[in-house]
């Protein structure tokens, strides 16, 4: 090793140096061992999440798409055609009347998601505009922790709030007593509203981040042209941050799609193929809770249907996350 020879000559000149310290030759040292161990631990942590994902995908596929011969997977018992075109989802019935059409679960899920979007996205965006453009530092100091508290409330509490407060004290008086419509004790509207409340903090903080990253020079240019604060917020900052805001919307919606507990408590019952927000619905996630908390025969079609539903859910959420990441990465390019 030519390097070590050079080092020796240098070390002869240098003050207070010995050959051993300066040698470039690799030799045993505890520092080196420690570095290796740390590297391995970190790698294993990363590996863990990859392995978890892969094993979940493995289980979902073997239970729903294809299983080795002695067993049969869900789609080997129920045809894809029935799964996607049948309008009834009745696994709770006796063998002959069982139908496995995912459509009611999908509409139920999107009903909840749609209601939550109507509530959560605009409110979240307006809060983000307030925090990023209008709020004084002291106001921001108050609002942000409150939002975090909102985000920290357990979802089961939201569900309880929906069924014990929203439905009897708000939805029933308005829609049943006043407008004369039929409101179910468990209805999509109550669940959708609380899920909308849940995603507000997420939309607000993600959108605020992208809006604050809009360069101040753009705001100043706007003001210099005679803009009011509202002009600057609505016509410069929001358009400039639009793709980031869009990405935060998509992330929030995939949270809505995946939300389980509040919906299971407040809205979920019979799997209706309906868009009526005052009716009982069943979502993909709450169906899974429903089956898991009930009695289900191991190895039955009902049990396997859980995996098929989970697979659909997994694919939908994954697509939404991929789209939002793609949008976000495009957004970053605009301002480097």
């Amino acid at each position, binding site marked *: 090793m030519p390097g070590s020879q050079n080092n020796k000559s240098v070390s002869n000149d240098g003050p207070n140096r010995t050959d051993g310290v300066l040698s470039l030759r690799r030799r045993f040292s505890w520092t080196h061992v420690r570095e290796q161990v740390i590297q391995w631990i970190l790698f294993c942590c990363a590996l863990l999440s990859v392995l978890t994902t892969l094993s979940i995908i493995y289980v979902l596929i073997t239970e729903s798409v294809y299983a080795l011969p002695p067993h049969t997977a869900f789609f080997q018992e129920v045809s894809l055609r029935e799964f996607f075109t049948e309008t009834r989802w009745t696994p709770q019935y006796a063998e002959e009347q069982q139908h496995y059409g995912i459509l009611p679960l999908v509409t139920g899920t999107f009903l909840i998601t749609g209601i939550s979007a109507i509530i959560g996205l605009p409110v979240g965006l307006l809060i983000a505009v307030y925090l990023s453009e209008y709020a004084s530092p002291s106001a921001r100091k108050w609002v942000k922790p409150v939002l975090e508290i909102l985000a920290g409330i357990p979802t089961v509490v939201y569900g309880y709030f929906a069924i014990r407060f929203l439905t009897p004290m708000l939805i029933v008086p308005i829609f049943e007593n006043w407008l004369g419509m039929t409101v179910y004790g468990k209805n999509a509207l109550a669940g959708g509203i609380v899920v909308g409340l849940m995603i507000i903090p997420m939309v607000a903080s993600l959108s605020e981040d992208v809006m604050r990253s809009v360069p101040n020079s753009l705001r100043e240019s706007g003001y210099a042209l005679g*803009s009011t604060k509202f002009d600057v917020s609505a016509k410069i900052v929001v358009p400039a941050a639009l793709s980031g805001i869009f990405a935060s919307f998509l992330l929030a919606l995939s949270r809505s799609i995946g939300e389980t507990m509040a919906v299971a408590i407040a809205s979920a019952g019979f799997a209706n193929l309906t868009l009526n927000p005052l009716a009982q619905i069943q979502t993909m996630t709450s169906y899974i809770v429903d089956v898991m908390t009930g009695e289900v025969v191991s190895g039955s079609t009902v049990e396997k249907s859980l995996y098929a539903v989970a697979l659909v859910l997994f694919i939908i959420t994954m697509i939404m996350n991929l789209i939002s990441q793609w949008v976000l990465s495009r957004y970053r390019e605009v301002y480097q």
Partner: protein
Amino acid sequence: MALVKRFTQFVNPQGDGSNAQGPEVAPSLGTPKIETRGMNFFYGTKQALYDINLQIQSRAVTALIGPSGCGKSTYLRSLNRMNDIIEGTRVTGEVLLDGMDIYSRDVDVVSLRKRVGMVFQKSTPFPKSIFDNIAFGPRIAGQTNKSELQGIVERSLKQAALWNEVKDRLKESAMALSGGQQQRLCIARALATNPEVILMDEPASALDPASTARIEDLIFELKQNYTIVIVTHNMQQAARISEMTAFFCVGRLVEIGQTKQLFTNPTQKETEDYITGRFG
């Protein structure tokens, strides 16, 4: 030669009074367009400007020079109250635009900024089309008529000497323009609101020499109709384009005078040291 002619105009303002009648507000030459009297500026408790007394002539270029951190940008930004955006800033003294104190209680900042436009060091095109960039100011001022807007966009781009380069792609994103084009776009955008005064904060410092030359030509054209105040670090630039030059140092106005006189025969030792490159 043109330089000398411009200087003589300033020495004998009265002789030129009749030519100064423009289509817009035209105070007789000699009355300053902008005047600051005993102005102090504070960022919180830190004072950034001390007792600034300065007159800015109409339809001429006034250059503000000085070392970094001397307060010349702060002074410039206080002329259209851009510093209001920064939390905790405070102004005392008077800043008069056509004799009216712009810091008085009954001044509408939004209309002030329509009369006193600004161009920044870094070009700041909005992530919109070229057309929408120029039309931004007129639109927020309430102009919705499509053909009016088209007229304004064309006029502004022509004034900023950018029309020929972009007339076929007005709908394309302004972000795709080159740095020099973007800066001229920002000038056009400022012109579109039909201001009387244009403040420029080192408008060419981020540009290559060719683009800088174009901006300087443009400033030379614009001063026929506009009052221009420009902050620059480039003393040759100040000498080339301005009639008056003000030298700032650590928050004080050291000297103001006709550019030629200030550069050839400064009255203050500090000015001389700065322009001969002995400090700063």
